[in-house]
Structures are given as structure tokens and as C-alpha cells.
């Protein structure tokens, strides 16, 4: 096809343009990928923090509501007659506020636990990227040494070849500059090697503490659940007592509970 041939010829005739197009496309793609990866990393942190802050606010609000009702319960029902339906309603209202508070606290702790799990996983990944450096960096050192050897060889060969001709000063200066940069790399690798073990040990310590913190958070959550059940039991008992008081006033006497020792 003539049109297609022309297009191909055009590309062949302009390799620089083709390369530029490739570079621009590659660059765009790479930058997009980098931006996307960075966004994916940043998003859970920011979203998690916002979610936790919202849950904390809700928990504080529900706790304040319950606290207000619980502290005033006795005073509010003291003046009521035993069978006043408002008394039972007041107890039920405090009980519901207590349940709402504990549900909000549970939601907060669940999210905090989820974030702690992510934090622990991040520390685990951190350790997984630091520990291999113990083996990687000595390899890096060897490669830098080989590169240094290569530059020394070039320098020596050029020195012989150039025979002190001033035209080669620039090239020789460039090689000297390269050699000094390679020495900087070599020194940097030495420095990294000297800090790897201490860093890995510190990250291991952090991971252990984060794992403990994660477990402690779960225990706290379980303790709140247990406490929630006890609050419910207490408010049920309180409501039962109010009902008993009402029954007595009305003259409705339930059958007395048999003492356990006499049941047989």
C-alpha cells in the first residue's frame, strides 16, 4: 500500500523524531504510572486518618450523650411514682445510649485495629527491604570496584596514548572527575554497609512492638465488648427492679424465688 510505505519511509527517514516520540510516550506513561503508584500509597493513609478522625468524633459524641443521661438517671426518676412509664422509658433511653456509645467505640477500635494491621504490614515490608541489603551491598561494592578498575584502565591507556598532548586534557579531566564520582559511590556504599545491621535491628524491634500493639488493641476491643455486655445486663437488672417496684405497688406479688437449698 503506497500510503503505508510512505509512512514507514517517513519513520525511517526521521529516526530522531521517532526516538523523540518514543521518549515522550515512554515518559508520559512512566510518569502516569509513578503518579498512580504514589497516589495508591498515599490514599490509604490519608483516607484512613480521615475515617479514624470521623469515628473518634462520633464515639466522643455518643459517649457524651450517654454520660449526660446516665449521670442524671437517678435524679430524673427519683420523683416519679413506681409505675410511671416515664421511669422505664428513662432507663431504656440510657440503655440505648449506652449501646450506641459502645457501638461507636467498637467501630473506632475496629478501624484503629485495621490501620495498625496496615502499619505492621508496612514495617514487615520495610524489614523485607532492609534485610536483603546485608547481602546486596557487598555485591554493590564489588561492582563499584570493577567499575573503578575499568576507569583506571581507561585513564592509564589514555595517558600512554595522549603523551601529554594538551588536546587530551579535557578527556583526561573528565576521566578524573568520573574516578572521583566512583570513589564517592564507593564511600557511600561503605557508609550504607555500616548502617545496614543497626537499621535492620531497629526495624525488627519496631515490628515486634507493632505486633504487640496490634494484639493489645485487639484485647482492648474485646474488653470493650465484654464491658458492653455488662452494661446491658446492668440496665436490664435496673429495669427489672423498676418493674418489681411497680408490681409491689399494684399488689401484684410474683411467686417468691425458691432458695436453691430448698429446691430439692
Amino acid at each position: 500500500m503506497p500510503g503505508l510505505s510512505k509512512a514507514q519511509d517517513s519513520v525511517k527517514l526521521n529516526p530522531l523524531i521517532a526516538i523523540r516520540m518514543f521518549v515522550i510516550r515512554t515518559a508520559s506513561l512512566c510518569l502516569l504510572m509513578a503518579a498512580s503508584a504514589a497516589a495508591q500509597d498515599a490514599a490509604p493513609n490519608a483516607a484512613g486518618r480521615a475515617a479514624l478522625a470521623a469515628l473518634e468524633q462520633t464515639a466522643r459524641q455518643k459517649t457524651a450523650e450517654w454520660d449526660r443521661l446516665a449521670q442524671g438517671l437517678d435524679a430524673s426518676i427519683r420523683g416519679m411514682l413506681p409505675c410511671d412509664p416515664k421511669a422505664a422509658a428513662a432507663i431504656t433511653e440510657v440503655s440505648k445510649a449506652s449501646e450506641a456509645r459502645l457501638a461507636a467505640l467498637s467501630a473506632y477500635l475496629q478501624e484503629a485495629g485495621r490501620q495498625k494491621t496496615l502499619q505492621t504490614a508496612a514495617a514487615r515490608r520495610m524489614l523485607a527491604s532492609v534485610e536483603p541489603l546485608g547481602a546486596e551491598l557487598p555485591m554493590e561494592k564489588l561492582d563499584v570496584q570493577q567499575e573503578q578498575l575499568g576507569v583506571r584502565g581507561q585513564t592509564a591507556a589514555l595517558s600512554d596514548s595522549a603523551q601529554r598532548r594538551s588536546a587530551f586534557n579535557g578527556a583526561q579531566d573528565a576521566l578524573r572527575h568520573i574516578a572521583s564520582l566512583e570513589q564517592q559511590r564507593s564511600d557511600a556504599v561503605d557508609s550504607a554497609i555500616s548502617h545496614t545491621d543497626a537499621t535492620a535491628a531497629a526495624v525488627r524491634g519496631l515490628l515486634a512492638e507493632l505486633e504487640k500493639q496490634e494484639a493489645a488493641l485487639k484485647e482492648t476491643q474485646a474488653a470493650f465488648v465484654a464491658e458492653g455486655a455488662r452494661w446491658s445486663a446492668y440496665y436490664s437488672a435496673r429495669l427489672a427492679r423498676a418493674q418489681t417496684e411497680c408490681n409491689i405497688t399494684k399488689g401484684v406479688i410474683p411467686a417468691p424465688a425458691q432458695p436453691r437449698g430448698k429446691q430439692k
Partner: protein
Amino acid sequence: MRGRAALLAFLAGVLCLFAQSTQSRDGYRGAYKSWREADPALERDAGTAGEALTPRTAKAADAAAAFSAARIAFLRDMSDRQAENLRSLRATEAQPLPNLSSATDAIRLANREIGAVGSSASAFANDPDPAIQQLRQAFDREQSALAALKAAITARQEAEEEASRIASAAEQARGKVLEQYPLLAAALAQSADAMRQEATAWAGYYPALAEASRVPGQPVSGPPVSNAPASSVPVASAASIGKADPPARAPSITPLPLSRYVGIWGFQPGNLFHGPEPEIVDVVVHEENGRATGTLYARFKLPPGSTGDPVLRFNFSGDFRATRIQTFALQTSDGAKGTIDLIPGGPFNVLEVNFETEIKAGKVHQGDMLVVKQ
């Protein structure tokens, strides 16, 4: 053309660094082997090969650029992973739980109720009335519920205190990591940074070698070690060394020698600048047949809290003109266009670099600084 292609290939490699997850050593090791094995006699022949060295240096420059790109990719990957870990570590504190529901207040409330229920129950303690007995039992059940509640609140309080103690220990552990990790990350970043500068230096070395080889020269003494035919080797007596005139070359296009523009230039701390403060600036300027090609890589110190990109890379090219200030068109790595002025400074080894690009959000678009010949 080959130099440009090499530069573009190098640039493409570098641009992909950000998107690569884990680099293998095989890539750069293979590229290194290819480079080193391609023309091991290049420097040895440089003194004698003359014009014939140019295509060989271009080939070596391509191979060096390929190696440099792969090497930078590897080192950047290693460095970036640690830098990312460090950022994440700095951003997440091991905070203790906030006191959302005071256990002390809850225990106080439970105690108050226990007291009230207890005193009411004791008032009916010895009353034989069956109805009162029922009420007494209700009080007992309520008291038991309150005792169990108090125990549960106490258990929760202990769990919270333990969690708080552990959070404090975790925060201390995080502090220890933050003492060590930056040292490791900085060393790796320094290694990657030096490699990047090395790539720029290699990009300048081969054209300098080719240019030097084209200049007819006079060796000090003895036969040069070369693969080239003996007849092509210029011979001079030892006595002529030192007395010889500078190597002959075509008259410069520019009013000042081309060496005032061409070469590898770098910004040094304390150098004068105008606009954003540079941290690193590497400028490489080549000349071939009166045409300039070059690259600039710069990293600037942005104001604290700035979210802009501190790094700027661009290529520039154009013809040298018979003016002191040379102005060339530039294009940044993200496509912005602009111009760069190269202005020779007072001392021979100082060059003023002044550039301006199209404005792009978050990017440095102008700068003016003195750089020193490397």
C-alpha cells in the same frame, strides 16, 4: 546524531525509573559488559586514530549511556524503596488510643450505684414480707450486675493501660529506627546521585575524546601503542615538547574560545545565583561542526512545605554564533520549551547559565546561576 540518540535513550531509561518496581543487577551488568567489550582499545588508539576515532567514540558513548541508564535505574530503585519506607515511617506515629470513654468516670458511676443499691437493699434486709423479699432479690441481682460491670470496666482499663504502655514502647522503637534509617537511606541516595552525575560526565567524556583525537598532536617520545598504521602516527622529538605551539584547530566561531562554553560545568555551594536556590546543577555542552548540544540537570532547594518538583532536566541545542552570549533553544524532560543563555564569566572556568521555560505547575521555570568547569 548518535550522541543525541544515546542521550535520548539514556533519558528514556531514566524517565522509567519511577515506574519500575524492582531492578535486577543483570540489566546493568550486561550493559557494562557490552560497553567494556565493545572497543577496549579506544583510549589506547586515541592518540593516533584521528578522525577515525569519532564513530568509535559515538558507539562507546551509546554503550556508556545504556549502562548508565540501567545503573541509575538500579541504584535509584534501591534508594527510592528506602526513601519511601522512610517517608512512610515518618508519617505514621505509634499513637496511644485516645481516652474516648473514661474508665475512671465509669467506675465512679458504678460505685455510686453500688452504694445506692446496697443501702436500699440493706433497708429491706430482715423484712419478711414476700413482696419486699422480691424487691430485695431485684436489688441483689442489680448489685451483682453492677459488681460484674465494675470488674469489666476495670479489665478494660487495664487493657487500655497496657495498650498505652505498648504504644509508648512502639513509639520509642520508631524513634530508634528514625535514628538509623536516614543514614542508610542517605548513603543510598548519595550513591544514586553520584551515578547520575557520572552519567553526565560519561556523556561529556567521549565527545571530548573524539575532539582531542582529531587535533594533530606530537607525542613526547617513543612509538605510541596503537593498532593504527605506523605511517599515520605523527612523530616529534622530545626537544619539541614544551616548545610546541598549542594544537592547531579551526578558528573559533565565537568571539571567545569555544572552551569557554563547551565542557562539563557544575554548581558549587556558595556560587552566585538568582531565583530558586540550586542544590545541584550539572551542565554538559558539546560542540560539533559549529553546533552546540547539551543537557542540564538541576535540583533546587524549594521553600519548606512546597509540593513542587525540585528537579529540572532539559536538553538544548543550536548553532554557535559570533556573539559573547550564546542562546539556545531548550526542551525539558516534560516537554516545556524555552531558551538558555550561556554567558562566559570573568574567570575562564566560570560560566553563567540563565534559562527560562514555559510555566508548568509545580515546576521550576527559570534560573540563573554561575557554574564552574569540572
